[in-house]
């Protein structure tokens, strides 16, 4: 499950993520990070589901971190898409690529909903839901 963690200024300097990793032993992977002195935003992938996932999300909330599930998704309008490729190399997670016949392919699992491709597409074929 991909989750966006939003740190307020009060907690941004606390090692919340590290503590939860230490406590749960889960391999929480950081996909994207924007942190400065005022606030922080992480997109992480938590290898867990169901009740266990909810418990972990609760731990973040208790520590003062806001939690948003990244269910996205991105939609590609294949009537408009020309498979030009302008969205591919700017994507930070390599979620976009060409298939064998040079058609644009999208790997939902890798996407962190960062919008970079939405802006990069010259024909507005990508929308973020």
């Amino acid at each position: 499950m991909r989750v966006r963690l939003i740190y307020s200024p009060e907690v941004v300097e606390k090692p919340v993520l590290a503590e939860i990793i230490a406590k749960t032993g889960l391999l929480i992977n950081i996909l994207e990070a924007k942190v400065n002195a005022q606030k922080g935003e992480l997109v992480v992938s938590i290898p867990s589901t169901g009740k266990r996932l909810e418990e972990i999300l609760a731990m973040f909330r208790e520590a003062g971190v806001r939690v948003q599930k990244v269910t996205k998704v991105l939609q590609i309008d294949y009537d408009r898409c020309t498979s030009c490729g302008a969205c591919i190399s700017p994507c930070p997670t390599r979620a976009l690529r060409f298939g064998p016949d040079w058609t644009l392919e999208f790997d939902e699992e890798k996407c962190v909903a960062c919008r970079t491709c939405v802006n990069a597409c010259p024909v507005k074929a990508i929308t973020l839901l």
Partner: protein
Amino acid sequence: MKRSQREIRSVEEINEKIKRGDAVVLTAEEMIKLADSSGIKVAAKEVDVVTTGTFGAMCSSGVFLNFGHSDPPIKMTKCWLNDVPLYKGLAAVDGYLGATALSETQGFEYGGGHVIEDLVSGKEIELRAESYGTDCYPRRHIETVITIDDLNQAILVNPRNCYQKYDAATNSTDRVIYTYMGTLLPNYGNVSFSGAGQLNPLCKDWNYETIGIGTRIFLGGGVGYIIGEGTQHSPQSGFGTLMVRGDLKKMNSRYLRGASFYRYGVTLYVGVGIPIPIINENVASTAALRDDQITVNIRDYGVPSRPDLRPIVSRVTYADLRSGKVTIGDKEVPSSSLSSYKMAREISEVLKKWILEGRFFLTKPVEPLPRRREFKPLRIRRKELRVRDVMRREVITAKPDDEVKEVARKLVAKGIDHLPVIDRDGRLIGIVTSWDLAKAIANDRNVLSEIMTRKVITAREDESIDVVARRMAQHNISGLPVIDEAKQVSGIITTDDISRRLVGRRLTI
């Protein structure tokens, strides 16, 4: 490669075969396969025509329109289609709509390219026109709705299409830049390129032996013609271009797409396909050129210079670029295209089909295209203000371990706002402003290193004021340290300095 070669077949002979239905037509990709497996000699002997294709953003595109006369008639002096202005320095109801013209209400979201696409798809378009009124053309305003069927003529005339190849782009700076080569991530984060390489028409007749004025082509899904060399045609260096025309009314919006480049502007994606008659072995061998034989430079678009002066950071082939990864220095960098290889392929297939079905015949050029052309930059004859003409040379600097209060006193005493922070060797490592200092004192911070901004936006002495002023506006800051190659601070330039210098004049002296 030699130019004059023994002719294997003439265009007339090929057309006879097309009529009989027994011409051998291959797409450029198929030609490459055949040449690889059987050799050029065999390929040249067997193949009559090779079809090519390209589909990319072609900014120098546009359409001549004739609206017909209203009653009472108008001599339109200004005219808009869906709020996009046309060029009206023509007769009363003729106009030219350029692909990069921006909508006056939607900005980068919509422009000439989009209007062209909407016209071709048969959509209704709002027409607005103004005039001063004359005895023969008394009307002064028009507001109505048109479709492409209402127009007498809609003729696509593109002054520069179909670049033979195009240098790729990357970005060395530490911020994202948005260019006509797309989104370029910081620190060589990606490479963006354009062109169909081994499918690209002008790569397949590299020596212009068959392509010339009068060549019939696939243009935007319809039939078009080459009417001359394109602007900036520079064939000797592999950057040939074409000027083309075709009847927009017979085109297809699948192959003409309005496009917006984020924070750059609008344009038109154009599909072009050119048939190459294999008249001799020389043409056969260029028609069989592969992506790995076509090289381009990767240039640093982080340097705000004219395209041919942007530093070359790597030299690669289209095969490298299309593999999705290229190397710059010792770094592996993801690469992707702006033009569509898939569509280029489709166009070469469609053209092949047209020829095989006897619907499209080849032409012999009435005149060849020039094989040499000087490509000149625009010289600015008036002296332009550079940073060095405006900057202040006596710079007060500070050290990272200087005390906040001490430094604040210094700033107040000298009446300045920006203080570059340098290390022991005089290299710039940060900057503090009077605002930072005020905040620091309020928050009880003691030394500069705790509060200084480490990511400093800078200027160089030889940069034009125009570029530097834009940089300051973009980052919403009012002063930049001026540094040299070794990061030594040689001056400081502020918006105040610039405006003082520019009161009542332009950016030239």
